[in-house]
């Protein structure tokens, strides 16, 4: 199963990963902020299993927040 992990501390909530996901699995979690004051990108738990591991989110992230394993 593919797995996406986020280094939330350095996310800037730019949303480029959200836009890049072909399955539209990512969201910006408006209920949380990191130490820099940004909301953070995440994949809701019930959506994780739908990830195909294409890494399009990670390829678009300017800040190397995302790691993808399969």
């Amino acid at each position, binding site marked *: 199963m593919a797995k996406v992990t986020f280094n939330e501390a350095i996310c*800037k909530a730019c949303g480029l990963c959200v836009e890049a996901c072909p399955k539209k699995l990512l969201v910006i979690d408006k209920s949380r902020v990191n130490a820099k004051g940004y909301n953070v990108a995440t994949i809701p738990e019930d959506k994780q299993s739908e990830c195909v591991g294409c890494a399009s989110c990670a390829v678009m992230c300017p800040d190397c927040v995302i*790691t993808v394993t399969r």
Partner: protein
Amino acid sequence: MEKVVFQKSNMLTDAPLHFCPGCSHGIANRLIAECMEELNIDKKNIVGIAPVGCAVFNYNYFDVDMIEAAHGRAPAVATGLKRVLGNDKFVFVYQGDGDLASIGAAEIIHAAARCENISVVFINNGIYGMTGGQMAPTSLLGQKSTTSQKGRDIGRNGYPVKMSEMLAQLDGATYIERVSTHDAANVRKAKQAIKTAFKCQLENKGFSMIEVLSACPTNWGLTPVKAMEHIKNDVIPYYPLGVFADRRNEK
């Protein structure tokens, strides 16, 4: 067993990037790092030249030796370094469009004409990002900036400069390609282009430049997602993607 599909390159330090949210500089930094890693270039043999502009702090992000050049002079610094240190050292140059196409126009033209064995990554975001959004030589016709508040006007400001097309005319330019960062497929293509440029230097074939169409959401006044759409819909029609010079077989 779990296989890593994507992780941060070991050519980058752990320093958080200072760039604004959604800025293409972060993508370009990462691609350069990934290419050097995948080409197995020894970290000890790499020297990068950082520009003046938003990428000025690049020396904190690449885990290799870096030099900060005076505004626009990165190709001249790279020329000296490469000639003194020889082909055992890999020298990459990173420049914005204000740096490369404005104050540094002479340096880049002559580095290309001399076919210096260096690789240049040229970040074209059509604006002076660092200084607060002034018009650049590359700004589009009609583009609003702090110094073209009603939009870039031909009579007053002249036409945008197409650096890739211009430098491709020089016999010294071995490889010149324009790529974009507006979606994942194009970012992957951009990486291949940067790798081609780096190989050019490793094979001692001389000057290469990859122009990377980039977003400056902050000074364009757009969200990061809208800025990428702007590249696709408005920037690429004026700055078409593609290979403008490929003289690798002649060198």
